[in-house]
Each structure stands twice: as structure tokens, then as C-alpha cells.
């Protein structure tokens, strides 16, 4: 790893009142790799990705993108860098069709005020096909008619359509059946094969070992280990999640 990681956090912390949600966390993900982010409830996973997304600022620490120090003050800044986040609830409007959802907030117009539906439909189809999402009957279906796996695929396609470089997926398989989970995991692998840096938050260790290259374990707001997936066992990860060594506990007198 001679080059700097695509996205790197150095010593980020975040407190909500008296609760130290993140404490001096380092994190890095390379282009073309899938980094799993695991940890028990309250370990700070969501706090970390929301900080990257610009939902709220970190209290301290630095964010590097492609080696450059950057500041993210809001979702638009993150999007400008090419960082897209697929939230667990997907944030799709059920009543709109697939194309409208994929372009929501970034609609293209051809004449003054007039939506360029043809161009948007074409671009949506191209993106879906490049991700080998073939199970949709039509891109003009309302999202309400789609299965859970299809909705996840649309949300992912929406995230990668904008030449994004980093895609962060929050629990992408949480509500899915076996076959649909398989499809979404294949989709995540294709993102890596396209050279994107992928961060996946998941509680499902089976899924993680299926797709991840490396695993970052958070515990009580601190990073306790970074494992190579190929060289570790599920037991090691479970141990790290539940009993990983904390460097120091802020506020605790030892």
C-alpha cells in the first residue's frame, strides 16, 4: 500500500453530551476494496458514517480524500467528493418510479423547466445494466412495486450513478431473504470490481466473510482491530466485537 488510501479518517471523535460516541478513531478504505465495518450496537458505526456523510461534523480529527485534507460540512460536500451513502431505510420515495428516484434532487432538464425524461431513463438503464441489475420489469415501475432486494439495488445504483468513488452501505442485507441477499452481495462485489471503495456496515458475519477484504472492528467508540478477512476467523471477529482491547476509556480512572 504505497499510495494513500482513497478515504482516510485520522483520530476522529464525536460526543453527544456526556456520551463519547467515537474516540480517536482511525479508519481507511482503498479503491477497489470492500471494507466491512462491524461492532455491537452503540459501537459508533452509524456515528462514523454520518460524520463522513456530513450529517454532523466530527468534534476533532481529520478526513483525507485521495491523500488531501478535506472538510465535509454537509451532504452536498460529501457528494461533491464522490462519497455516497446508502442508508438502511434506503430513502426512496415509494410513489415515484425507479428513474425519478435515481435522479431525485439531481434531475436533468433539456428545455427551460422541462425534465429530460428520455435522457434520465437512458442513464438509469445504463447504470442498472452496468451493475447487472436485470430483474426489474421496467424502470418506470413505482418503487413501491419492487421487492426488498430490487429496492436495495435501486438505492445502490442511485449512489453509483454520479461517478462516486466511495460507496457506504448501511446494513444492505438486513431485511432480505436468502436469494435477495445473494443478489445484493453480488452487486456489492461488482462495485469493488468497478474500482470503487466500498464500506459495508453489517451484523451478519457470514455475509461479511463472503464479500469483505478487510474488517474494521469498533467497540465502545474505539477501533479495536483491523483484520484481513482471508486470514481471520469468525471467532476472532466476534472476540474483537465483544471483548476487543480498548486503548483507553475516556473519563475512566484506571
Amino acid at each position: 500500500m504505497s499510495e494513500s488510501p482513497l478515504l482516510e479518517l485520522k483520530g476522529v471523535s464525536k460526543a453527544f453530551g456526556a456520551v463519547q460516541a467515537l474516540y480517536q478513531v482511525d479508519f481507511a478504505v482503498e479503491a477497489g476494496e470492500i471494507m466491512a465495518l462491524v461492532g455491537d450496537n452503540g459501537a459508533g458505526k452509524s456515528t462514523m458514517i454520518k460524520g463522513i456523510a456530513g450529517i454532523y461534523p466530527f468534534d476533532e480529527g481529520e478526513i483525507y480524500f485521495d491523500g488531501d485534507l478535506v472538510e465535509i460540512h454537509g451532504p452536498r460536500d460529501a457528494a461533491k467528493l464522490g462519497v455516497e451513502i446508502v442508508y438502511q431505510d434506503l430513502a426512496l420515495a415509494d410513489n415515484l418510479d425507479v428513474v425519478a428516484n435515481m435522479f431525485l434532487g439531481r434531475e436533468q432538464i433539456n428545455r427551460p423547466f422541462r425534465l429530460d425524461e428520455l435522457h434520465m431513463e437512458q442513464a438509469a438503464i445504463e447504470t442498472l445494466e452496468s451493475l447487472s441489475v436485470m430483474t426489474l420489469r421496467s424502470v418506470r415501475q413505482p418503487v413501491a412495486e419492487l421487492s426488498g432486494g430490487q429496492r436495495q439495488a435501486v438505492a445502490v445504483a442511485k449512489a453509483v450513478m454520479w461517478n462516486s468513488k466511495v460507496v457506504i452501505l448501511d446494513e444492505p442485507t438486513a431485511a432480505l431473504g436468502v436469494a435477495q441477499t445473494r443478489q445484493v452481495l453480488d452487486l456489492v462485489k461488482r462495485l469493488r470490481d468497478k474500482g470503487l471503495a466500498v464500506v459495508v456496515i453489517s451484523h451478519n458475519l457470514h455475509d461479511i466473510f463472503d464479500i469483505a477484504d478487510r474488517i474494521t472492528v469498533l467497540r465502545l467508540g474505539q477501533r479495536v482491530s483491523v483484520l484481513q478477512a482471508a486470514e481471520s476467523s469468525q471467532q476472532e471477529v466476534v472476540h474483537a466485537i465483544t471483548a476487543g482491547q480498548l486503548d483507553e476509556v475516556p473519563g475512566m480512572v484506571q
Partner: protein
Amino acid sequence: MMSQINEPKPTNALKESNSTQSVSNYFSDYWRRIKTGDLGSWPIFFGLMVIVIIFQTQNENYLTPRNFVNLFVQMAGITVIAIGVVYVLLLGEIDLSIGYVSAVAAVFMTLRLRPPNSWYWIAAIIAALGVVALIGILQGTIITKFRLPSFIVTLAGFLVWNGVVLIMIGSGGTVIVQDEIVIGIANYFLPTMLGWFLAIALVVLYAVNRLLGWRGRKQRGVSKTPLAIVIAQIVIVALIVGFVTYIANQDRGIPFVVVLLLVLLVGFTFLAERTRFGRYVYAIGGSAEAARRAGINVDRIKIYVFMISSIMAGMGGIVLASRLRSVDTSAGGGNLMLNSIAAAVIGGTSLFGGRGRVISAFIGALVIASVENGMGLLGLSSGVKFVITGLVLLLAVLVDAITRRGRSQSGTA
């Protein structure tokens, strides 16, 4: 891939849908939607048929050219107001102030037209619409900035603007509209030849628009309706427009308000379905959170929509004042507000946001006006009229709820 075995369409379904659909595919798709409870406008169509048959058997004056023309003039005011209601309902909000906001515009305009210092008619109308636009912005700002329910804020508006109407009219009681052009809005009828000219121009514009759209989609290779269906739709529209023009010309001719309605319906349909603004309105109604995360300024869109609601209410009020040739202390009262909201709902716009079309304002108003007109011909008491109108609204909402349950059972709600 074992996963693909379980999928209904493992083949390249997207590519398939891009190629020209055959006519039989189109109908099987249509039939599938009907079976899963997506009945489209069929219930309304059958409902209108039933209404027409009932009233025609009771009173032979119902289906006459004269009554046909009357119907359009009677429904115009409610239709215009209901266009604004559709936008508010699409957001998942409600505007109860529309009745008296329409009266504020009508009274303001009528007072400006009164001699000796009477304004030019267009100035009076624009000033009146400007006043109600400010009312809409005010209500929308209060609702969004203080996170108050639109129901409560516009209920307060309902009372306040009722009071303002009474204060403006003062002890005068009734104020006559003293401008021929303003009276003409609801009382002018197009000469026969002009009516036919506009009808033909309308059909030609529609046909050109549909065919150009079809060709554009064919060139880009994206999904499209079969050409035979497009042509069939153009023929149907031509027949309807020709029929309406022919019947209206048997009587006084096409009312000017019909032209006004057409312009408003087409314009606001374009705004809702072809622009970013309209897309955002639907998105907020479907999921405000998704819209917010997509970077849409939800508050600003909501304020604009309440402004549109007030402006359309004001326009509707002006149409109603024109029809009555006067305004009085009861302007905007009665069941005007409830009829306008009912029109949007009967026409198929959901009260829960995100679902509906501008045309539902016209369809619903047509149903309500048909029922009221028929009951008027039969000389029914206003008590009976209210009961029947209420039952029609209930029936429309029931049909919507039942078909929606059908959709949710088939997983397409």
C-alpha cells in the same frame, strides 16, 4: 446462479422493456394492473354513467345542450380551486382556508372595479391574486417554520379570512361586479366558428405532441407505448373534443371558462409532471425524508404549494363572482371549501400525499356538478342535496380504499 432461478424474469428484462411493446403486451399489462386493483379512472367513468342515466330517466332536461353548457359554467369555479387542492394534497397537507381566500380575492377585485375610482380589469385581477398569493405565502411560512399542522393553521385562516371578507364588504351587503370583461369570464360564449377553430387546433396540438414524444422515445430506444395505442388515444381525444364542441354549439357555444379551464389544467399538469418543482412535490408527498436527503428544500417547496393553493382559490373565487355578477357577505362560505376538496379526492387524489393528478380536479368537479345540477333540475331540497353529495364522496373514497387494499395485497400499494 441459484438466486436467479427464483426470480420471475431472469432474462434481460430491462432490455426487453425497451423494445417496442406489442399491442397485446400493452393490454395484458393493462389487464394485470386492473386485476391487482389499479382501476385507474374506470370507477369514475362508470359512476358518471350511472349519474347521467339516473337523472336522465328522472328529468328529460338533464341531457340537453343547454344543461350541458350550464354544467361547465357551474363546475368551473370548483375546478379551478380544486387544482390548488390537488397540489396541497400531493404534499400530504390540507388547506381549509381556500373557501374564504377565494372570497378575499373576489371581494378585493370587485371593490377595485367599483366606480368612481374603478381600476382597469386586469389590474384589479392581478392585484387580487397578488393579495391571496401573499396569504398563501404567509400560511405556508407559518406551517413550515413553526412545524405546525397545516390543518390547524389553515383552520385559523378559515376564520380570519371569513372575518376579513365581512370587514371588506362592510354594511353594504351585496357588491355588483361592474366590469363587462370580468363578467364575461363566466358569461361569454365563443362564436360557433371560433369554437370549432379552437377545438381543431387543440386536437392537432395534442396529436403532434403525442407523436413527437413517441418518435423521440423510439429514437432513444426507451420504453414507449405502441404506436397503435397512441393513435387510438388521439382519435378518442378528437372524438371527445368534437362531441363537446358540437353539443355546446347547439346551444350558446363553448363557454369561455372552458378555455380558461383547459389552459389551467394543461399548465398545472405540466408543472406537476414535467418540471423539477412538480417532481419535488410528489417526492415530498411520498417520503419527505427521502426528499430532504436528496438535498431538496422541503420547506420552500411547501410554501410555494400553499401559495399556489391560495392563488388558485383566488382565481376560482373570481370565476364564481363573475358567474354571479356580484359578491356578498356569504361569498366563499357554504360548502365551497368542502366541495373543492371533495372534487380533488373524488377525482382520485389521495389525502395521504404522493398520489394523484391535476386532472382529478376536473373529474371530481364534473361528478359533483353533475349530481348538484341533476338534483337542482329535480327540485330536491338542499337537505337531500347535502346527503346525496356526502354519500357520493363517501362512495368515491370507499372505492379508492378498496382498490388500494387490492394493491397492497398484490404487493403494489
